[in-house]
């Protein structure tokens, strides 16, 4: 198990390096003006622009620029073109909001999908399964900017059950934090519940046909135990790996629509605004951060996965 973990972390570092190089090159290719000039800001002297050019290595070959940019990302001295604010600090400042949206949403969608998926599978082909199937497809076809706006209008503005967007930090007021996030969570979860409950349904139906499930029934244990201990545990494996990846991509700016709709100042909204202004440093930092999140979470998922399925520990 220890060797497995070490090997997995090694390959994660490799993947992150490759992603950062690729992202850097993509933004080199996008025409966005002279970076030194944009970094220096509107009211700079030519001397200031020149000193930034030297400091960042914009007059040097591209690999030097890459190394210098990465250094600046990791020592936290990158500033954005338009606001001239420290990017790393902005991301760190915005992260709790995004984490709150993502974690809450991910927990809700995982729990509800497991419930719906199991109900669908054990009632496969019957009335309940059909209702849940239709609901899943409705959920799947509800983009956040549509469902979120509808929910805000009817449940927030008209019915006044929920606040109209904004984010309140957990440390400031836990009650307000919760009530402000409830609607974004549910909006986010609806989309994924559709996908996840369908995946679990088919995975569980496959597992229920396995010989070892028949063996479990032949032991005389309760049907509930057969379902949970023998069938569900094996069916959860594909769901967990998917969950890790979705969770990570949401953290790395995937909440862009949700944050925009509910006016939450998180990483998603930051990257969305930066894209609108072609503000390269934040986009670069958040892309690298997103890659980091995906790689780190998929490594965590793989380790979890191995804990769930002993056979994976042996094969590389």
């Amino acid at each position: 198990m220890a060797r497995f973990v070490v090997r997995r972390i090694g390959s994660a570092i490799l993947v992150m390096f490759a992603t950062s190089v690729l992202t850097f090159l993509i933004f080199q290719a996008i025409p966005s003006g002279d970076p030194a000039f944009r970094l220096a800001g509107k009211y700079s002297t030519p001397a200031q622009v020149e000193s930034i050019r030297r400091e960042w290595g914009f007059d040097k070959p591209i690999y030097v620029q890459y190394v210098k940019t990465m250094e600046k990302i990791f020592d936290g001295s990158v500033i954005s073109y338009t606001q001239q604010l420290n990017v790393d600090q902005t991301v760190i400042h915005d992260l709790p909001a995004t984490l709150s949206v993502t974690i809450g949403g991910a927990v809700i969608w995982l729990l509800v999908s497991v419930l719906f998926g199991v109900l669908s599978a054990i009632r496969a082909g019957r009335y309940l399964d059909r209702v849940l199937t239709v609901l899943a497809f409705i959920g799947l076809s509800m983009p956040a900017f549509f469902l979120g706006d509808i929910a805000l209008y009817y449940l927030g503005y008209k019915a006044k059950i929920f606040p109209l967007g904004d984010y309140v930090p957990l440390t400031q007021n836990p009650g307000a934090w919760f009530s402000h996030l409830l609607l974004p969570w549910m909006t986010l979860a609806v989309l994924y519940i559709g996908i996840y409950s369908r995946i679990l349904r088919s995975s569980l139906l496959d597992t229920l046909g396995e010989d070892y499930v028949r063996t479990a029934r032949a032991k005389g244990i309760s049907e509930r135990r057969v379902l949970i201990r023998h069938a569900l545990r094996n069916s959860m494996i594909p769901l967990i790996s998917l969950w890790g990846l979705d969770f990570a991509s949401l953290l790395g700016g995937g909440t862009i629509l949700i944050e925009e709709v509910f006016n939450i100042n998180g990483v998603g909204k930051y990257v969305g605004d930066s894209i609108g202004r072609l503000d390269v440093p934040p986009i670069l930092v958040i892309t690298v951060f997103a890659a980091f999140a995906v790689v780190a979470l998929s490594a965590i998922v793989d380790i979890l996965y191995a804990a769930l399925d002993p056979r994976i520990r042996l094969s590389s």
Partner: protein
Amino acid sequence: MTGSAPPPDVDPGAAPPTLLEVSGLSVSFRTEQGVVHAVEDASFTVGRGEVVAVVGESGSGKSVTGLTLMGLTQSPNATIAGSAKLSGRELIGASQATLREVRGAEIAMIFQDPMSSLNPVVRVGEQIVEQIRAHEEIAHDAALARAVELMERVGIPRARDRSRAFPHEFSGGMRQRVMIAMALSCSPRLLIADEPTTALDVTIQAQIMEELGLLRRETGAGILLVTHDLGVVADIADRIIVMYAGQIVEQGSLDDLFYDPQHPYTWGLLGSITRVDRVRSARLPAIPGQPPSLLNAPAGCHFRPRCPHAFDACTQPPALEARLPGSPAHRDRCFLEPSVKRRIRTVDGAIGLATGETVIS
């Protein structure tokens, strides 16, 4: 569980007390293509300490018979009729609660494929513990100690360490031993072994069969051995039931079936065993044709389309009855006269199904 001492070496002459009594068992499944009659009107008994083999080709209904006794074929599309009593307790139509009590504790089952019959993500010791604790109020550690003991008893070396291993860390033969240990864990009165050696190589097959024989002698459990391999049953079975297309076509003692078989299908099965005591012929005799679809079995005798000895009467369904004077326990479904049967079943000096169309060379 039974408490009383098991019978000593079973004497094939004396009928042991009845443990399982199946009468008129029929199982059919509704499918998109139509109704599949998997088992039709099966009646047989298994006595204490008796090994009864159910033999037939794939799709003859033998596995479904075993699974139905455990209530494992229940589904909205299954129709199950008839009766199966375990020591007087009715199993067909029993409640889930009753079936749960019976499963594992009174009837245990060993499945065909040990590679897929154990949960891959649970340690084998825990899988045995789970069954013990499903039926007895016993602490986890005590149950685990018993699981280790059982694993030792079925010949798994270093059982204490191995109980912490996962199924994929075992060979096929060892996994089947784990399955047997699990089946033994609550001292069942009846063991249903569904092709227990089919997925194993020949030397392991012999060991597993030996294990089953030992088990029968030690515990007095009755064994219903489902197999397609007549060679496997010759060493261990007391009685044999031959199934074809969902029906029992012949049943009797081991000697009845091997030395005086009455049904042409049984002859075909016997004729297609490879034997070391026979001059090797160029071809291994096979029964011509394919088993019928159970959606639409032939009218009358189901074996008629493949039987070289079929005649007019065979379009009527033959009853399963004793047709030999003096052997009431030897029953079959064939209209031919016993004297005619004895004459025509000899092919090349051994029992077989006379036909020019032998397939496998």
